[in-house]
């Protein structure tokens, strides 16, 4: 109940003893509103321009991801995970596949892991670029947004080169990836990363020290460490409060322990800190990508274990084991051992966790995804009450709500 009392005390300080009940205006922001990217409704109580109450309502983009997953084979869930976070689909692909691999108790080959790190970091950058660009656009820096979208376009061309699609990637498999690095990918990658760094520098000059921008985002939407923890914040939102929690380091999954990177932290947890943390994370991710590209090992990109990989066509038609494997994989699906696991990975916006329950059959019993922005939207009242109505825009922009993963 600490959060509610904090909220209450904040409302009281703003009320400063006056009775607002007569002058409060209730206004519906969303579900169709330019600042509510994704679809969400904020029922807001205003006293003049001051926000005195807010209640977020979610669920407008509910597609039944979890229920659909229960009616699919394990492998058929991967395309659904593309649609969870539509600004960094690969991170959800990777998160889900790693969760199933954990259920199997196997690991993907090293080359696959390094490729996943590269693609994952590219997605993290596209996630941050979209979030920062959109947030800046809504305080009026439209040019910044389009420059960032240009940078994102460079990266999405890489994603397209790798997976054949920009959004519906469907790229990972259990025990590896569906494809190896395409020819010339690493040189393209270096080229695009240098272009990205140029744009970052340009945008840094344009916005980071702009007085109007700093006035708009500094001391706006701040949240204390304790509140952030009690709401279950993760990712850049938590790091902006000064807590260096990053699943890549804390849990050290994949090959992140072999790569050198820093975890940027903020101090006050306001919108400006979140902006700076995300800007720095883009640079760190670029450095991770370079390191991973340098260390890229030779070898297979997919495990050769039976009953994970579809057998080669020559085995299917050439020997009985191949034929039976193929038949069972198609008819019954992958069958991870019975059990339940939770696998956290660091998404662009915080901790993406998959909780899976298997009964040993080809159908998942439960696929539950922990979306990072769910907690942020829940904390919206705490972050906005006491600020002006115009502050909803940078605050909501900085939490980077993605309707796809919020409502699932």
């Amino acid at each position, binding site marked *: 109940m600490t959060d509610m009392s904090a909220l209450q005390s904040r409302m009281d300080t703003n009320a400063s003893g006056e009775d607002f009940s007569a002058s409060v205006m209730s206004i519906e922001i969303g579900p169709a509103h*330019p600042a509510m990217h994704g679809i969400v409704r904020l029922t807001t109580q205003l006293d003049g321009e001051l926000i005195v109450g807010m209640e977020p309502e979610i669920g407008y983009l509910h597609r039944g991801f979890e229920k659909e997953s229960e009616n699919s084979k394990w492998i058929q869930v991967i395309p659904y995970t593309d649609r969870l976070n539509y600004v960094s689909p690969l991170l959800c692909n990777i998160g889900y596949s790693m969760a199933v691999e954990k259920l199997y108790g196997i690991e993907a080959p090293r080359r696959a892991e390094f490729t996943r790190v590269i693609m994952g970091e590219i997605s993290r950058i596209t996630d941050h670029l979209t979030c920062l660009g959109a947030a800046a656009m809504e305080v009026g820096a439209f040019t910044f947004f389009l420059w960032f979208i240009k940078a994102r376009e460079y990266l999405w061309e890489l994603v397209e080169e790798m997976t054949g699609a920009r959004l519906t990637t469907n790229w990972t498999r259990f025990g590896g990836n569906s494809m190896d690095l395409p020819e010339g990918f690493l040189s393209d990658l270096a080229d695009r990363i240098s272009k990205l760094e140029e744009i970052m520098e340009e945008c840094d000059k344009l916005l980071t020290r702009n007085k109007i921008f700093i006035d*708009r985002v500094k001391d706006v939407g701040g949240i204390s460490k304790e509140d952030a923890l009690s709401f279950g914040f993760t990712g850049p939102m938590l790091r902006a409060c000064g807590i260096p929690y990053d699943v890549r380091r804390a849990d050290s999954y994949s090959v992140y322990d072999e790569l050198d990177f820093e975890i940027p932290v903020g101090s006050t947890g306001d919108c400006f800190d979140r902006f700076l943390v995300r800007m720095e994370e883009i640079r760190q991710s670029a450095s991770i990508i370079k390191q991973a590209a340098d260390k890229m090992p030779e070898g297979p990109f997919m495990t050769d274990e039976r009953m994970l990989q579809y057998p080669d066509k020559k085995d299917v038609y050439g020997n009985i084991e191949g034929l039976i494997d193929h038949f069972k994989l198609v008819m019954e699906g992958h069958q991870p051992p019975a059990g339940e696991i939770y696998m956290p990975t660091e998404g662009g916006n915080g901790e993406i966790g998959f909780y899976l329950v298997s009964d040993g059959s080809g159908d998942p019993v439960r696929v539950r995804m922990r979306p990072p922005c769910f907690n942020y939207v829940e904390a919206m009242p705490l972050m906005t009450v006491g600020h002006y109505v115009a502050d909803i825009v940078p605050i909501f922009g900085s939490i980077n709500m993605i309707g796809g993963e919020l409502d699932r």
Partner: protein
Amino acid sequence: MEIILDIIMIPAVLACIKIAVIILLFAMPLGTVLTLMERKWSSMIQDRVGPNRANIGAFTGHGALHLAADGLKSIFKEDTIPKGANGFLYLIAPFFGLIAAVATFAIIPIAGPIGDFTFQVTDINPGLLFIFAITSLNVYGAVLAGTSSNSKFALLGGTRASAQMISYEVFMGLALMGIFMVYGSTRVSSIVDGQNEYWFGNLIPMWGIFTQPLGFILFFTALVAETKRAPFDAPEGESEIVAGYFLEYSGMRWSAFMLAEYVSLVGVAALMTTLFFGGYHVPWLHLWESAPQWLVTVLQIIKFSFVTLIFCWFQIQLRWTVPKFRFDQTMGLGWKKLLPLSLVNIIVTAFVILTLA
């Protein structure tokens, strides 16, 4: 033939003709072209192509046809009135802004007089005070649109607009006090002629920007805030209150708001040229004594239009470069920074004038 000339020279008829020429051939076309210019220029800033699709056959005119397309679209769009709106006020509100924007041009001379004939609709004595009076009309457009739309977003926008515009009118007047003191008149023609004097022989023209540098910055800021363009577009607040006071409008009435914005953009530019950049006077042209009258007039119109266009460009560039202020920051900037600065400007100007005299 002579009868026609006589009729034309009747002051009232002449004024009407001038109004038609200046508004229909200068202000409106420039305002309309600026909508395209703004879209093209912003797309250049942002590495985009900008409008280029509207075409007649193979002719696209680099997006010029979008002007016609947009106009046609607005005309044929349904003119909606929201449920519960105050019909009459809702319908007339868009035109306050347009009238105020257009009226600015009444006192702006675009070239020097030839004999009795002036290139100015009217050279009234109150001059700039007329501008202040007219721009305060502008507030009604925003307020009426905001309150009559029966929409909470529009109401918020209308309140913001009224507070902002009324406040900035104060600084607008105060910032111009310096100009009145330096040139000793509120009459536009006197101010413009005053700027045709020179310092140090014929070296530096006594333009407003040199005599009143601080006044220039203050007045320009106040004018941009008065026209509600970025970075002072909190009343529109496109991201939080969607479009502010004109949220509910559609079709031609919405276009009237847009057109008013662009015409007043030209108005601001023309006013800045007139008051701070020597108006129509081409600097150092008086040194060429044998210049034919027609050439002088043409050069004056060219100079006036050129400086005006530069100011138009500057406002567009400003909009696409900087983020926008929050509403309370706009007000804070006005009352806490611009007001003291303009008072200081008045005192310093008075002191300098007294010492020199």
